[in-house]
């Protein structure tokens, strides 16, 4: 993930670069974002952030995150998705599902039903990608900049934020910046 910050002064730029890196690392999106560009104008209290979305990993199926560990029983190999898996199973099979241990789940199913279950999607990273990116943006931008305006573009999220109403000038400037960084990437 590349991060570029401008307009915040020597200290501010370096500090915000670190903040962007840390926040997207905490959210777990560092590998799903190609680049982050942040423009800060504290004098007029306007901040422009533009995020280019990168590759997103494939949906995780039940088969990807479990192994069969005996008759009517499977073992979770990726604990991260275990709560989602249990929610899916309880929703679908109700009391048939028994959690024997932290990672062991027992469920009595026909062979055909089991095959079908193993191809079920537990978690699709594309599903909440935008929400998570927006959560990151919310954490990066200064808290006082609550007035937001977004500029639509394919594969990119761009937001202008300020504590004042956002004027046309800034919308135009943000579009220009967006064009410039998109051209630079091409």
């Amino acid at each position: 993930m590349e991060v570029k910050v401008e307009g915040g002064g020597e200290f501010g730029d370096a500090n915000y670069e670190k903040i962007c890196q840390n926040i997207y690392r905490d959210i777990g999106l560092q590998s799903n974002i190609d680049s982050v560009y942040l423009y800060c104008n504290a004098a007029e209290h306007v901040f422009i952030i533009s995020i280019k979305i990168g590759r997103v990993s494939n949906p995780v199926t039940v088969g990807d995150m479990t192994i069969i560990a005996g008759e009517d029983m499977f073992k979770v190999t990726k604990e991260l998705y275990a709560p989602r898996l249990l929610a899916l199973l309880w929703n679908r099979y109700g009391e048939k599902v028994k959690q024997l241990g932290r990672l062991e789940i027992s469920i009595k199913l026909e062979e055909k039903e089991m095959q079908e279950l193993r191809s079920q999607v537990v978690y699709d990273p594309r599903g909440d990608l935008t929400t998570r990116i927006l959560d990151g943006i919310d954490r990066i931008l200064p808290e006082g900049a609550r007035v937001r305006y977004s500029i639509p573009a394919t594969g990119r999220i761009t937001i202008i934020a300020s504590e004042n109403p956002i004027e046309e000038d800034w919308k135009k400037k943000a579009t220009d910046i967006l064009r410039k960084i998109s051209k630079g990437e091409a």
Partner: protein
Amino acid sequence: MYKIMMFTGGVYKFNELKELVEDIGGFILQEMVMQVETMLHLAFPVEEERVIRDKVKEVGGKIKELPLAGAEIMIVVPSLGKHHAVDPMCDIAEFLRRNGAITNMMGLARGVGKRIAQMTAHEKAIIEECDAAVFVFGNFEECIEEKAKLCETLEVPYIIVGGPPELNIEHYVGNIGRRTERMRRKNEIEQLEAVAEAVRVAIDEKKREIDEDPLATSPLFIKELLDLVLPPKAGEEFSTIVQLDGLRVKVEEGDEENLKNIEIGKRKLSDICNITKSEYDGYLVKILPEAVTGSVY
């Protein structure tokens, strides 16, 4: 005048040290015994430092100066949101505590932004109950300059902490901007030391003012009496907080009269102190100068 220091060491002849402190007219402010490790905050007359140091050497412990001991400090951030808490707010508070201060933390209700940043009269009153305040204002020069105006009317010493290394603002300490991780590297510890040093300078000025017009009695002496008359409940910590010119006392409803009637020498506590209900927690006991109350003993 009392000096406050921290002793750390084993339990060997530990009681002898405590007895010595009491014999020379000092106080034990805080005591923590962890298996065979002990920690004491000691207050003793400044001229007896040599005696204490000799005793500490004899019992094989260590003694450290606590430059901020006896002061209650408020750490103020623009909000309690994840932008400002927990780092660097808690790092600063922790470092001030290591230097002996009692810290409180406060997020302003509408302190974010530049033009829209405000501090209410109630918030100002709460901050002024403490001995000093540390404001943590983020990364941008323009925002810090604007927010610094909010602090100008404060009647307690304060320092402003921000990102840019140098700014033309009074009581400013730079290099600590917004953070998303704990300050634990060497250069970061040095920055925290700079903050503690700036707070020490601000507090020393207030201490000097108090020395010029001495208080009727020492807050440490009142604390000692308070702990006897209104003892803290089991497990309760910091029921009485020492400030430079008074105390914050957390008493239960109905104990206010007992508090006012505590006898200090020939006088009652209410005669030599202003006792008011705190806007924040407990009661504030502000000791009047001896010039106003006359001799207590």
